């Protein structure tokens, strides 16, 4: 077969980039079974940290000094500020007698865990293969990372759809944005810094609004579940 001769073994750089991208995807899967709100936010922070690391790796390997700044900013914002904002806004939510941040959101899935994971694997595989079929080439990162980033986005959709609590849905949206950041690292690493900063700032505003609306919801429904949100239909 010609395959053996054409496919070169990946170098250190593309190998580590792929490992990080896969790590992001695995963390996304981890969010499916997280039972506590605080840990859910932590998983998100870890995922964001991985993406910042990837930005540093790319910056070092490809000599793009802008990306160092971007990595630093996205670390500060996504790993520190957004989780802190979310945790502060969500402090004290949940049933009485539980400590802050220990709000139980287990069992809010509309499918069983195994089914959800199977569904997510199917969706992720679809994302990987359909992007591979398009044949986009990146000057900066291996194409595998692009496929994986699209898989992350699709799995984030599964997360938002199957979990029935407002916190997981919000985290699902933020990790969707992480997937998009990963994509932009692969295909748009040279994007001007000012735009990236604007995107990050926008994310911060969105985080505050999501937090406020979660509070409003909790204030009215006295829970984080969306099972009650059925009055508007038709």
């Amino acid at each position, binding site marked *: 077969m010609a395959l053996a001769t054409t496919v070169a073994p990946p170098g250190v750089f593309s190998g580590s980039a792929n490992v990080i991208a896969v790590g992001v995807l695995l963390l996304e899967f981890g969010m499916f079974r997280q039972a506590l709100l605080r840990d859910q936010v932590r998983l998100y922070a870890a995922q964001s940290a991985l993406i910042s690391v990837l930005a540093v790796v790319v910056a070092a390997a490809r000599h793009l000094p802008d990306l160092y700044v971007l990595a630093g900013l996205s670390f500060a914002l996504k790993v520190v500020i957004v989780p802190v904002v979310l945790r502060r806004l969500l402090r004290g939510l949940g049933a009485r007698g539980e400590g802050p941040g220990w709000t139980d959101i287990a069992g809010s899935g509309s499918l069983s865990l195994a089914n959800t994971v199977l569904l997510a694997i199917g969706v992720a595989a679809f994302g990987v293969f359909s992007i591979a079929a*398009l*044949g*986009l080439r990146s*000057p900066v990162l291996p194409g595998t990372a692009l496929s994986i980033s699209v898989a992350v*986005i699709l799995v984030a*959709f599964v997360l*938002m759809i199957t979990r029935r609590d*407002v916190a997981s*849905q*919000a985290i699902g*949206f933020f990790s*969707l*944005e992480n997937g*998009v950041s990963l*994509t*932009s690292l692969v*295909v*748009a*690493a*040279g*994007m*001007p810094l*000012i*735009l990236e900063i*604007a*995107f990050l700032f*926008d994310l911060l*505003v*969105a985080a505050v*609004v*999501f937090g*406020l*609306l979660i509070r*409003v*919801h909790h204030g*009215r*429904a006295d829970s984080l579940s*969306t099972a009650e*949100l059925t*009055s*508007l239909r*038709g």
Partner: protein
Amino acid sequence: MLLILTLPLAATVVCCWAPERARALVTVVTGLACLGLVAALAAAAAHRDLAYHGILRADALSAVFLLATGFLYAAVAVYSVGYLGHGRTSTRYSRRFWTGLNIFAWAMLAAPLMNSLALLWIAVEVTTVISALLVAIEDTDGAAEAAWKYVLIASAGLGLALLATIFAYYAGAQLLGQHYDLAFSQIMLVAGRLPHAPVQLAFVLAVLGYGTKMGLFPVHTWLPDAHSEAPTPVSALLSGALLATCFYAILRYYQVASSALGPRFPRDVLLVFGVASLLLAALYLFGQRDIKRMLAYSSVEHMGILAIGVSFGAPIALAGVLLHVLAHAAAKGNAFMGAGVLVHKFGTKRLAAMRGGLDVLPWSGPLFLLAILALGAMPPFGIFRSEFEIVEGGFGSSSTVTAAILIIGVTVAFFGLAATVNQILLVPRTPPVRPPAVPAPALAAAARADGAVPAGTPEPARNAAAGPAAVPRGEPSAWMVVPVVAGALVLLVLGVHPPADLTGLLARAVRELSGVR
């Protein structure tokens, strides 16, 4: 151009601190000033493209959408004075409302002025988060639910739109180098040579992403909830201006895609979404129980018409589409504002409880009827002209089947609307307690409705709260009538004889859209 962007921001800041009356005054003045500025800008854009340091850019296409937003901003600002002037509002509520209204209008005015596709995305995202807070402002169970669904679905959709932005960057970077900033004027220069796969991907993602906010079929589900639960002035802005702004974003991608891929592909994509939205919304218009939900489905229907119109591609259909954007803004604004008066008068949004509107509301009743007739594309109004042009374009470009579907859908939708509105306005009330006519307050109210005396005097119809059956005749506030009259006049002008400047503007925008420069 800069003034358009700075004025609403300044108004926002003022509204954070200023006292109650000043807030309303500042907003009304800002709204009217913005309308004037936008009109001046549109007059200039009819002849040449305007640019400011490569960041801001206005051509005829953006001017059309700016006109729609600017008009609604002014109308809604005036209307809100009457809307908030009725007790029930606390200082906190009114501060949030006015601040939110100004910043929401600012973001919607900013979006069409942005030269960069990335900044356009940011402006649209800002409109999402601000309007979600405005939807939640009512602090009821329904509002909380609607706001949550809205922010989640729209944000997820905009996530896809961001992906589209990034793929558009990728496509452009192949030709323009890594450091270009997604400037629309730059990307159009090389659009003919862009690689196909990423542009296709970007266009489909953009239609899906921005289409979520525009209310296209499979992803429209947030729309009726948000429109029905938001305060009425916000509903009018959401429906008339926000949906149009998102349509503007799609049109920008359409321009890029049709010069990169040829017109076939983007038109087919829009056709599928448009037909699905039109048919679904037309069917949903029957059997609605909530007046604002009904109007929301009418918005979905009209957005479907817009998408179909673009998919025809003939110049006259495109001119019809752009005229439709303007006419729909005026008509839907009027309908929501009229509905707001009805809701206020009857104290409920349930259609079943509203009867005899024409007897009770001497001004708003007939105006609401006119707005609905306009929405249903009855002849003397703007929407008739625009839909006529779209259909004509459809037959002209041999999309006969689609044009036929369009006509059927529009007719079905009209019957749905007309049947319901007939019941609200014309079927007489049959209450056990029919209060004797209240001539004095009615006369006073009618006099003020003429605009002779500014509102602010104690409302004679306040005693309406006595019982649900006793709804005396009279308008709640002249502030809530004047903008609707203005809207009806605009509709009439658009329908009977659009001014020459406007047709020039539209013709230029059509040339931009169809790629002939």
